């Protein structure tokens, strides 16, 4: 249902934008070369559809991988950033300063060092969505949920895992929203990387179409990007929703079994990162 709603929203916006484009074409009498007619767009879609679908899936796969890397990294660094000691202060200061820099400007340097392969696209995708996730995670992990934590603190039961479990649980909605938002940024990062220098993906196809001044190809590519992005984001929302139902509902034991495992994993990462 959520997926259908997102798809419907995207298709409505896309159709409206196309309608406006063709409206402008008719009003100002632009040529078919500048703004292709609907039939030409359909022809491009039928001739290149399969190739474009493969390209957009390639882009999506890189974006998802980059997104996952960013989330894991942001969680690990966020755990350090929540600390009141010097590693925490240093991490927070570094994160706040670095996020102010437009990361996409660093992308050409990455291509210089890593070439135009998968590694560059993955790294740029991860970097672009990493800082918003990190800052949100630091904020969530560092802020006490006083009305829940008070009992554990005053009875001497509090430890960092319990504290994080409480804060994560209490902020699940916020975390899902941040992850969904950063998913879009991961896709944007991947496409930017493909615009710049890659030889694969839908961004590369758009770049080629741009050189040929072929708006029909660009419109088809944009449609597929929107479609894939809507599907991916609704998948994340669905996963977030399922987790919430499990935790709030009758299957909450999942949380009890799952969280200690996750924290042990993260603890090992933090330990490696700090020491």
């Amino acid at each position, binding site marked *: 249902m959520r997926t259908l709603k997102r798809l419907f929203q995207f298709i409505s916006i896309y159709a409206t934008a196309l309608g406006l484009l063709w409206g402008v074409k008719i009003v100002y009498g632009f040529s078919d070369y500048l703004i292709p007619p609907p039939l030409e767009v359909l022809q491009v879609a039928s001739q290149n559809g399969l190739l474009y679908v493969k390209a957009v899936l390639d882009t999506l796969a890189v974006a998802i991988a980059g997104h996952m890397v960013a989330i894991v990294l942001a969680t690990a660094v966020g755990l350090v950033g929540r600390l009141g000691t010097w590693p925490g202060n240093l991490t927070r200061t570094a994160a706040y300063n670095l996020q102010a820099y437009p990361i996409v400007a660093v992308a050409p340097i990455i291509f210089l060092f890593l070439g135009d392969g998968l590694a560059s696209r993955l790294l740029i995708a991860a970097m672009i969505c990493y800082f918003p996730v990190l800052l949100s995670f630091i904020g969530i992990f560092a802020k006490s949920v006083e009305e*829940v934590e*008070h009992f554990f603190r005053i009875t001497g039961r509090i430890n960092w895992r319990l504290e994080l479990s409480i804060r994560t*649980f209490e902020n699940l909605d916020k975390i899902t929203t941040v992850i969904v938002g950063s998913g879009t940024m991961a896709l944007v990062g991947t496409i930017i990387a493909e615009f710049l220098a890659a030889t694969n993906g839908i961004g590369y196809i758009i770049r080629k179409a741009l050189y040929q001044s072929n708006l029909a190809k660009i419109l088809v590519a944009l449609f597929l990007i929107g479609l894939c992005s809507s599907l991916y984001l609704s998948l994340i929302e669905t996963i977030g929703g399922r987790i919430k139902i499990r*935790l709030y509902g009758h299957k909450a034991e999942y949380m009890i079994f799952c969280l200690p495992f996750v924290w042990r994993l993260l603890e090992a990462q933090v330990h490696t990162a700090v020491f």
Partner: protein
Amino acid sequence: MHIACRNLHYTYPGAGFPVFSNLDWSIEGPGFFALFGLSGTGKSTLAKLISGELSPGQGEIDIPNARRVLYTHNAERIPGWNTVGAHLRSVTPASKTSLLTTILKDYGMEAHLESRFSGLSMGQKNRINLARYLVQEFDLLIADEVLANVDEPTRNHILERLKTLFPQKTFIYISHNALEVARFSQAIYVLPHGSTAGTNKIHKITGIDRQDGMETPEELVQERVYAILRSAASTSEPRP
């Protein structure tokens, strides 16, 4: 148990005036005591200072024989991923399991152990929260409006049973209900109406200290209630 505050000063960071200034106050436990006052007079602040959640700016708080001081308030929640029963079992020491069963039965909460905390009424939440504190090791429990949402008959029953179950413990019960504190407390400590110079005196009024099943003459209760209310409204210039 002896609790003594000497020359206590406390000002919240960024506040223009102190909550307490040069306050001397003491309680001799065990027993059930009440802290009464109008809103904003510093009851919760004093509770947090005694429990160590806040540190006094100047002066000292001495509780020589207390191994553990607990403070609870009525906004507390249990983690949402657990049922009430699972949470209570996980925080109850093995030696207190039968006490937990007794308390839950007393509080009429046995039927709600499989519920989520969020699914309980406000009064039920209050009872569950108090129950989990009562099964901890403590010498002094400061209960800040912990039964604020519980209906009167149940609240009276809980307070009576508290005294029967824990005769050797010290309770400081914070409430806005003058009738309730007059009936059940051994002594009521009334914080006077606020002053910009900070509270420096707490009035003591002897309570009726009603025990389980004991009848209390209504005239006596009324007399104490008036004394408490007069004392609470007594001072001084209102805070800005």
